[in-house]
């Protein structure tokens, strides 16, 4: 009984190490193909479209609503202390430091990450990747690298859009609906939100999440078992692992950036 549990744990650990190792080698292979991506611009544009533009809708709508809800909830708490003037600060700091990168990252993993895994997995299972290799076209450079670069560029932009629209949503609720003075809303926010300490750190987070989520997505797709079941599992893994990675890294990054 105990022996089999231990053996199971051992196998799981070895498997994890094995996958981690392959994942890192894979990242190295991708990075070698990255410079070429900028030369072959049309490929990158196409991927920016399917990774970035297609995720824009869900990001924009979620951002707006998250901002509006934050404003509403924040207002009812702050008004008890007569501090409703700080509503802008509350919303801006929550969005810029945490919610923007994290929620945009989670949504991005669900929308673009899963699509990337499924697409690459299907290309693998229909022998398209093998076919490319035999046509002397390296799929790492032709297929994986442009998708990776597109993901890394897209997420910071999406996170910024998420935060900006969230703040606009909060402004709409705070000023138009709840009647907070517009001047106070913006000036308080501006005074307490710092460019380098808050905004730039948020952007750094979103870049890190962009790298990690896209990396997981393309790796799972490339490494999947090339059957319909395998692709389905890989897609699920992408979303789950991305979510864990984002939340875990967010804790680490927050401790590093704002803890010291």
């Amino acid at each position: 009984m105990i022996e089999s549990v231990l053996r199971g744990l051992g196998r799981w650990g070895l498997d994890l190490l094995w996958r981690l190792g392959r994942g890192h080698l894979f990242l190295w292979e991708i990075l070698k193909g990255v410079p070429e991506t900028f030369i072959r611009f049309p490929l990158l544009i196409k991927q920016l479209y399917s990774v970035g533009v297609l995720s824009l809708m869900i990001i924009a709508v979620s951002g707006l609503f998250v901002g509006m809800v934050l404003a509403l909830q924040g207002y009812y708490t702050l008004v008890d202390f007569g501090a409703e003037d700080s509503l802008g600060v509350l919303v801006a700091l929550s969005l810029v430091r945490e919610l923007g990168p994290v929620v945009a990252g989670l949504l991005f993993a669900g929308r673009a990450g899963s699509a990337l895994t499924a697409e690459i997995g299907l290309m693998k299972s229909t022998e398209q990747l093998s076919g490319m290799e035999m046509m002397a076209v390296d799929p790492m450079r032709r297929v994986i690298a442009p998708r990776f670069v597109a993901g890394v560029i897209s997420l910071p932009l999406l996170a910024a859009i998420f935060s900006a629209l969230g703040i606009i949503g909060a402004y709409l609720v705070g000023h138009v609906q709840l009647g907070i003075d517009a001047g106070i809303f913006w000036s308080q926010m501006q005074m307490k939100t710092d460019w380098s300490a808050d905004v730039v750190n948020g952007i750094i987070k979103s870049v890190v999440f962009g790298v990690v989520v896209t990396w997981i997505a393309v790796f799972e797709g490339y490494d999947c078992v090339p059957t319909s079941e395998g692709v389905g599992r890989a897609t699920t893994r992408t979303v789950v692992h991305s979510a864990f990675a984002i939340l875990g890294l967010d804790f680490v990054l927050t401790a590093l950036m704002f803890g010291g």
Partner: protein
Amino acid sequence: MNEPLIKIRDLHFARGDRAIFKGVNIDIHRGEVVAIMGPSGTGKTTLMRLIGGQLKPDRGTVEIDGQNVHALSHDDLYALRKRMGMLFQSGALLTDLSVFDNVAFPLREHTDLPERMIHDLVLMKLQAVGLRNARRMMPAELSGGMARRVALARAIALDPMMIIYDEPFAGQDPISMGTVVDLVHDVSDAMGLTSIVVSHDIKEAAEISDTIFLLSGGKVIESGSPIKLKRSTSPWVQQFMQGLPDGPVPFHYPGTPFAEDLLSGSEASDYD
């Protein structure tokens, strides 16, 4: 006779614990059409991937045009692959590109030809496989036979020195089967290509090939011209060439005898 184009020596390959090749030796000469045949599961597709450098053998070498495929650097391997065409069983067309763009794909990737010239080249290749007028269709709209013909047009787009077909006749209706047989024959004839056909369709393979290699149990058990093989006295070769259900290759998967199994009671399974 001149040096063979492809020289396979003492090839060993295993997947996990299962040995697939235990010392395969094959010579293929320039301009020949060679069929590599054997029952399902003998690793014909694996052999194809070993030749293409997608898999590494455990032992032994594959030499193409004097170069050891598995000792080449990444760049040299890719340079060699430009001179090889491979036709996958599924066609392996890029699903997000039209027929035209699929055939143009290797040209655009590997040459700096002007679009005008690519256009003409692609139409020539598509004309050769009879699908010039289907050039605007997407791969999803094609039948299996058509997809394979497009893939053939794509495989010969760069005028390779050799071409490998993976099961080109499998799963085709009689008409498209005939078309593919003719095409394989025409392409190797007209372009002087060395062709390797991996197949288990005896009739078609025998029709087009100069030499047949029969694989079984991880080794080449017989090779020679189709006529020689048909006259072989080996019972195994006879069973395969005539397609007899039972013989040296048993119909039943090896294991316990039937009577013993019946007596052993119920089968433990997941569907309790």
